[in-house]
């Protein structure tokens, strides 16, 4: 049985390495990024499709980085482009921590819930059903390095996200993985994941996905 999994996320799904300076546009190689790790573990019957966009928010048009960073707005295109989708792995929320959006963690969790509900209401799964969902709580951030100013106040908010997102997963009856309990962000920029963190996360995602079917 072949399985199609869409990995819907931000720069930590895309595979942005910790940034030494602003405008550092490197990217982890495909086999280093967590979708690549998970795909290799799950084997050739599984197709993991990467849909990670740097700067993607849950549902905010970013006035600085672009209106196209709005995850909820991109969701219909992604669901329809890759259907039939067996499961969607959702890891968002970190970019909502940017001070310019000024949203409390409760709002971030509520925004993630709206995305979960939109997926559940879609016919993008097999036979016109909704895809399964694996919701991941992102690792908490540290305010350090080139991104610290933009994320002022974000660290404290981010520490509260795992518990709030666990409640969302519970209420929406979807699978949940707390990345914050498994991995830590890099001390270089306080936001992004190094290769070791991607490897750990990829293994955990693969293990969780394999229990969904």
């Amino acid at each position, binding site marked *: 049985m072949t399985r199609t999994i869409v990995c819907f996320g931000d720069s930590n799904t*895309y595979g942005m390495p910790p940034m030494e300076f602003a405008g550092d*546009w490197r*990217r982890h190689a*495909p086999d280093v990024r967590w979708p690549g790790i998970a795909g290799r573990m799950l084997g050739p019957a599984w*197709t993991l499709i*990467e*849909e*990670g*966009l*740097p700067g993607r928010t849950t549902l905010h048009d970013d006035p600085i980085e*672009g209106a*196209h960073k709005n995850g909820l*707005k*991109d969701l*219909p*295109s992604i669901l*329809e*482009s*890759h*259907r*039939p989708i067996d499961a969607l792995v959702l890891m968002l929320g970190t970019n909502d921590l940017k001070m310019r959006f000024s949203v409390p963690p409760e709002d971030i969790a509520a925004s993630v819930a709206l995305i979960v509900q939109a997926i559940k209401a879609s016919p993008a799964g097999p036979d016109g059903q909704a895809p399964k969902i694996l919701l991941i709580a992102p690792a908490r951030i540290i305010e350090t390095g080139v991104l610290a100013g933009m994320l002022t106040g974000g660290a404290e908010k981010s520490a509260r996200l795992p518990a709030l997102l666990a409640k969302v997963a519970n209420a929406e009856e979807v699978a949940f993985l707390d990345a914050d309990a498994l991995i830590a962000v890099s001390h270089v920029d306080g936001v992004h994941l190094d290769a070791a963190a991607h490897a750990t996360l990829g293994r955990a995602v693969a293990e969780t996905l394999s229990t969904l079917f």
Partner: protein
Amino acid sequence: MKTILCYGDSNTWGAVPQPHRGDGGRFAPDVRWPGVLRARLGAGHTVIEEGLNGRTTCIADPVEGTYKNGAAYLTVALETHYPLDLVIIKLGTNDLKARFAMQPIDIGFGMGQLADIALKSTFGPNGTPPQVLLVAPAPLAKLSWLAEMFEGGTQKSHRLAAEIAVNAREKGVHFFDAGSVIRSSDDDGIHLDAAAHAALGEALAMRVRSILQSD
């Protein structure tokens, strides 16, 4: 490693021609033209599929959804799949819907606009723009249940290749006319059957090889 993005509509997604409304489905990955392209190019190439049913060149569809606007979404697709060596853009068919009143010259400009977005982007190797290949869709065939939606579209569709070719030349990007190797299916007049996907994938593989070799 060379990375190629296939940006298109239902004929990139792989919609099975549907003689009656609701008969549709999706061809398997190895049947769809991006899959054929992937198999022909072989190791050392990553072929990424971004085909969305109903996608237009540059129009927010009031009926099927504003997110069908190809120009609005292209940046998301480019940035998500950075770094891209080549972007294949195959759109224009949905612009033929009567509700848009788009003329062939307009659709040509729509494709030109998409080429511009890619050429002004930093999502090619090392932050340079990617190469672009504009593919003109094959003309419409015998319409059935979609005839009303595409009223007047058949005649226009025969002029698309010429208009898109002009825009490709003006922007300095590559061009291929799908109508030179395939026909749309008479099952619905719009979509491609498995044989057409195979032929298009073969033809594009040759074209893509020559584009990437001249890098």
